[in-house]
């Protein structure tokens, strides 16, 4: 029996937290307070949280604990107040890889609840900011047993540290008519293919994928992942002119003009009588008109993905937004998936060979330049990758620098050909 299962009952003293019981939004505190009658250790947690509220101070420290053979997935927490709350001396989180699209059977959810309760404090979170299910409140032995039980029941633990992190995706084709590719299948495929990199951190820093079925980006990939994979299509979108006419009859022509025609970012829509004209060559697949007129308009039929790179939140060089790396790729057959996998490997290899410690790929591209990055991963430049060409004139043209006198070095070897500066010795 681990400590967290055998903690003695402790009286709750939570005058400030009690203030979180009123009001219409469901209260995690009321839930945990009730649950503490069954799980005494939860009372210790709430009493410590009350001290945090009173003193505006935090009492958790980190440490490192791993399941044998894994380099991440258990987020260890030790309390500075363990002399008062012995059950919190070791009170870790276990990250569990969520089902793609966060779909569950009640059988699977009950299994998670039972595992969390049997081995620890029985607190679950749906979901953490990187998509994982979080199970809270295990001591060292309980953490390992929890991981073991999860494994036996078909789950796997999530990523942490300088690793490929747990992927997340939108509900996609399971319940959305706008999804332009199979986000769930692709998420599982990338996760399973690269599971080694998820469990054993060996990158220069973390790497996150998020997958959205269309430009609406319900998986929040653009700002929150190193490699967003977003569904799109080539050729014309589908227009049902009869339903366009119905839309106009129902909402009025002014609504159409104010909320659809004039809101198109590339002005490629026009209304002619009761039908809609689309300049498909100029459409950037932003999804707005389809969102508003979703019965009349649908994505086109030749579907695939746009792959972007480099988004992350502000540390260390400021926010970076993802930018286009592969304007279009088909993603339907197994061969398409193989191509995606080998593309990801190329990107990782160049970044991990040349990136500095703690350097996200967006920061790496910022440092070496997108031109260098493209050459490093073997991609041709494409005007769809940029907003506009450069404005600074200082350029090192390799082609325009012939030798002017004997012995002058005209070419720095490009970074992707350079010898490593220090050779590792055995």
């Amino acid at each position, binding site marked *: 029996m681990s400590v967290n299962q055998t903690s003695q009952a402790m009286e709750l003293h939570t005058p400030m937290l009690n203030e979180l019981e009123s*009001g219409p939004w469901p209260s995690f505190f009321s839930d945990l307070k009730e649950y503490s009658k069954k799980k005494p250790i*939860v009372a210790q947690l709430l009493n410590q949280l009350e001290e945090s509220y009173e003193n*505006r101070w*935090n009492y958790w420290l980190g440490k490192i604990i791993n399941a044998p053979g894994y380099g991440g997935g258990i987020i260890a927490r030790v309390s500075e107040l363990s002399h008062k709350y012995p059950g919190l001396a070791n009170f870790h989180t276990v990250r569990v890889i969520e089902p793609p699209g966060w779909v569950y*059977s009640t059988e699977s959810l009950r299994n998670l609840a039972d595992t969390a309760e049997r081995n620890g404090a029985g607190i679950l979170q749906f979901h953490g900011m990187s998509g994982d299910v979080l199970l809270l409140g295990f001591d060292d032995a309980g953490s390992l047993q929890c991981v073991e039980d999860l*494994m036996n029941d*078909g789950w796997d633990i999530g990523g942490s540290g300088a690793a490929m992190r747990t992927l997340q995706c939108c509900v996609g084709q399971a319940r959305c008519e706008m999804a332009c590719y199979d986000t769930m299948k692709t998420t599982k495929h990338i996760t399973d293919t690269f599971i080694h990199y998820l469990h054993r951190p060996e990158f220069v820093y973390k790497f996150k994928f998020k997958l959205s079925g269309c430009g609406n980006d319900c998986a929040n990939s653009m700002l929150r992942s190193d490699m967003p994979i977003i569904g799109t299509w080539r050729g014309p979108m589908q227009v049902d002119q009869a339903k366009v006419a119905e839309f106009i009859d129902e909402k009025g022509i002014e609504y159409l003009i104010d909320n659809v025609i004039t809101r198109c970012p590339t002005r490629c829509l026009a209304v002619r009588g009761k039908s809609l004209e689309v300049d498909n060559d100029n459409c950037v697949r932003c999804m707005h008109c389809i969102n508003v007129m979703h019965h009349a308009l649908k994505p086109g039929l030749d579907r695939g993905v746009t792959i972007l790179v480099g988004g992350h939140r502000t540390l260390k060089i400021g926010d970076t937004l993802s930018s286009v790396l592969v304007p279009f790729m088909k993603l339907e057959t197994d061969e398409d998936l193989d191509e995606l996998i080998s593309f990801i490997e190329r990107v990782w290899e160049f970044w991990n060979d040349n990136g500095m410690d703690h350097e996200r790929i967006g920061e790496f591209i910022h440092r070496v330049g997108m031109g260098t990055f493209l050459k490093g991963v073997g991609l041709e430049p494409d005007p769809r990758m940029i907003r506009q060409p450069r404005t600074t004139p200082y350029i090192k043209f390799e082609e325009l620098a012939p030798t002017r006198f004997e012995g002058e070095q005209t070419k720095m070897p490009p970074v992707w050909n350079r010898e490593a500066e220090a050779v590792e010795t055995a």
Partner: protein
Amino acid sequence: MSNKPLAPRDQGAPDYTKLLHPLMAKNYGAWESHDRLRPGVLVHTAKSGDKLYSVRAGSPRTMSADTVRKVCDIADKYCQGFLRFTSRSNVEFLCGDKNDLDGLVNAVENSLGWPLGGTGPSVSNISHTQGWLHCNLPGSDAAGSVKALMDELIDEFKNETLPNRVHISSSCCQINCASHGDIAIIVQHHHPPRINHANMQICELPKVVAICPAAAIRPAVVNGMETVEVVNEKCMYCGACHGQCPSMEIRDSETDTLSIWVGGKVSNARTPPTFMKLAVWGLPNNPPRWPEVGEAVRRILSAYKESAKPWERVGEWIDRIGWQRFFEKTGFPFTRYHIDDGPEALSNLNRSAMVRL
């Protein structure tokens, strides 16, 4: 306890095909359209004619095992045992039979006590971080401040009366795990880290030096011990070093404050994705209910509701009316601290003679 030795099994992501509602599995990739029946209730129609009803409710994200079981009881009774969560911690009960809908809605609202909503042009559930409950770095709480704020905003969650959807995020330190939002709340520190030189041996010093975005940390020897020092003039109080090394304490319970940021957007619809921008700073970190934050968020929402056009997200609305009007309408003071001195500093100035007078 099992005696089997632990070993890596690398099982990967769960097999989602076994976790799909039968109508999702049957109509996978063959959906035709969707409609919103009422706030919190969606219906998706498949090409086959099947209809799947999704009842969306705001969850507290943090739940006891018993609450998870209550959720399961409802899904067993009305949803053939299947449900899903959204990226903003809403639960979606999936229901294949329209006749079960009333019972399902009643069970969610009354026996579970979770509000229906978060669909269409509404305030959805708040993405948030771990806070004092279980993080090692937080300057504030997350689950509690979110509970207090959603109490304030419940009507905007339960109704679809805003110009477009509003995503709110709440982060309890400047690493900002909850990231961007139409409205985002972040803790801010106001002093350089306090270094516990006696406890620096637990940290990898080169990493502590290297992680500083301002290059403000350098090696030093104090009392004969290897440690680091901080050039206070360079330090921008971000706390990156504190994440790397707990002996670099950045938090201060007396002086830490909260700030609110607006106009973040990930969707590509109409306009490209955008970062969030500073709206108001210096709000007190005031548990247990953070009333000043609630008041400020309400001010932003009511100005947005009153003057944005349909489909404009918060950032698009401000882009159209201009920041001068935003500060007028919200009543927040515009200060020199709102003028960017970070990586985007020059491009964030008004580099034109286009001025509203």
